[in-house]
């Protein structure tokens, strides 16, 4: 079932001379785990702002074409109506956090939905725990490190249990172990709770194994759309400068030297298994 559908979506920021999104048509289905990638400035963040209605309602500008999210026409529905379906974790957590304690920040969205107190308590605790910051509940967000703030931003969206979670480089300030934990949390939300995930990410080596779909944008349009395996082996992806995971690159290097592994690996484990087989038999 299509949860997000855009048809010839074109958007121009107020005062800009050319559109940031151009005639973009995509479909994202319920339960998808999508990685949205492409050169910096290609329109990824702008597209995310269309998904939750910040565009056009907050940023204004000119929106043409059609965009439907959870069956709602974004242009005709307010941000708060979309908010119960779509949660957006900002690239820069400082732009998202504002309350005087972590707990209050995480509870803010739920308060706006007028949730009963005990249910709110439960969901806040759950979100804090999922994001690994239960012990930070009383701390002021602005005193936390960049990585901790990023977790608070994730928790505050998580608490709302939206149908769709959009995350704009949600782990960029986190150390690799912290990032891996967050990716696993995101993966659980997707696989166990069926939340549709749209992840904006450059570091595909970390995220590729969780995704079923990779969308590559360039200059405001979609240039590639397919499974991680298809994308990572395509010549176009290389040319646009998509960061192919090292595991896939090792496969490509071996292939150039006449060694053909059975399939194109995307993850560390797959590569190790394929190499083990090749080294044993051959």
């Amino acid at each position, binding site marked *: 079932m299509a949860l997000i559908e855009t048809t010839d979506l074109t958007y121009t*920021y107020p005062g*800009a001379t050319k559109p940031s999104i151009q005639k973009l048509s995509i479909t994202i289905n319920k339960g998808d785990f999508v990685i949205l*990638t*492409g*050169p*910096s*400035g290609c329109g990824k*963040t702008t597209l995310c702002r269309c998904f939750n209605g910040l565009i056009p309602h907050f940023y204004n500008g000119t929106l043409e074409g059609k965009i439907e999210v959870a069956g709602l026409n974004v242009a005709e529905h307010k941000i708060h109506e979309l908010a119960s379906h779509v949660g957006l974790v900002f*690239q*820069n957590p*400082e732009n998202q956090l504002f309350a005087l304690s972590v707990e209050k920040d995480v509870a803010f969205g739920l308060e706006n939905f007028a949730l009963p107190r005990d249910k709110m308590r439960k969901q806040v605790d759950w979100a804090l725990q999922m994001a690994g910051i239960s012990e930070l509940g009383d701390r002021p967000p602005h*005193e936390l*490190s*960049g*990585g*901790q703030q990023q977790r608070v931003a994730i928790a505050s969206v998580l608490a709302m249990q939206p149908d769709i979670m959009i995350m704009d*480089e949600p782990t*960029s*300030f*986190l*150390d*690799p*172990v*912290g*990032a*891996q934990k967050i990716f696993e949390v995101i993966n659980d939300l997707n696989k166990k709770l069926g939340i549709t995930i749209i992840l904006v990410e*450059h*570091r595909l*080596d970390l995220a590729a194994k969780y995704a079923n779909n990779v969308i590559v944008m360039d200059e405001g349009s979609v240039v590639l759309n397919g499974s991680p395996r298809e994308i990572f082996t395509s010549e176009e992806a290389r040319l646009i*400068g*998509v*960061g*192919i*995971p*090292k*595991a896939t*690159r*090792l496969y490509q*290097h*071996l292939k150039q*030297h006449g*060694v053909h592994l059975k399939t194109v690996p995307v993850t*560390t*484990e797959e*590569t*190790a298994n394929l*190499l*083990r087989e*090749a*080294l044993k038999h*051959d």
Partner: protein
Amino acid sequence: MIEAKDLHFTYPTGLEALKGINLTVDDGEFLAVMGQNGAGKTTLVKHFNGLLKPTKGEVLVDGVSTRDVSVAKLARNVGFVFQNPDHQLFSETVEDEIAFALKNFDFEEAVIEKQVEWALNLLDITQYRKTSPFMLSGGERKRVALASILAWDPQVIILDEPTIGQDHQQKEKLQQFILQLNAQKKTVVVVTHDVEFVAECNPRVILMSQGKILAEGMAEKLLTNPKLVAQASIVPPQITQIFLELADLGLPTDVIDVHEATKILLDRLRKKQ
């Protein structure tokens, strides 16, 4: 040369961020500071240009204690690029942003023009010279912040998480010009979580944990030690992870580079035939 001697730093909130750091960064060295969130990496490098002064111990830049020099004076030699570009940018156009420090340092107009041009070009942002930095994407703002520091050509360049928000191509460029700066005998200190970036540059690395230095050495030694990297809350580069999984087949485990990995595997496969 930058020296930290028994450097301790406690924030006004009582948080003890650095607990006795001893470290020397030589002229022309390329150093990466890695480790867990909250380990004290940013706090440490903020001492290198005097933004923070030690609570105990001292930091010497070219033999002079940072306590005895103003930040403004230190800045001429030590440029600092913040993790979050929004903490740094404030001008109305990209061009003004880059020219700002140059004007403060009293460079001549002609020099300023030339340096701005050079920096715009280097960071691939010439097309945005008349644009407000705040109209740009996260990755582009990061490059503006970098350009504004590189423009005045400091001897030491400190980069706090330079690869955040950068796509693959920009990262490769960043890597190239860091190596280029380094070849010009500039000192480059990078704070980063990006193991793949470090694996490709192979600089000297210090791993930090809880306000202390856990280990130091070349990237290929440190990042391939599973115990150490786990203690520092990082993960080995993907190539290393693959080789660690295959350790029982007698393959080396200290591999970080994809070309080296290819060579080792090809050798092994040939021997089998």
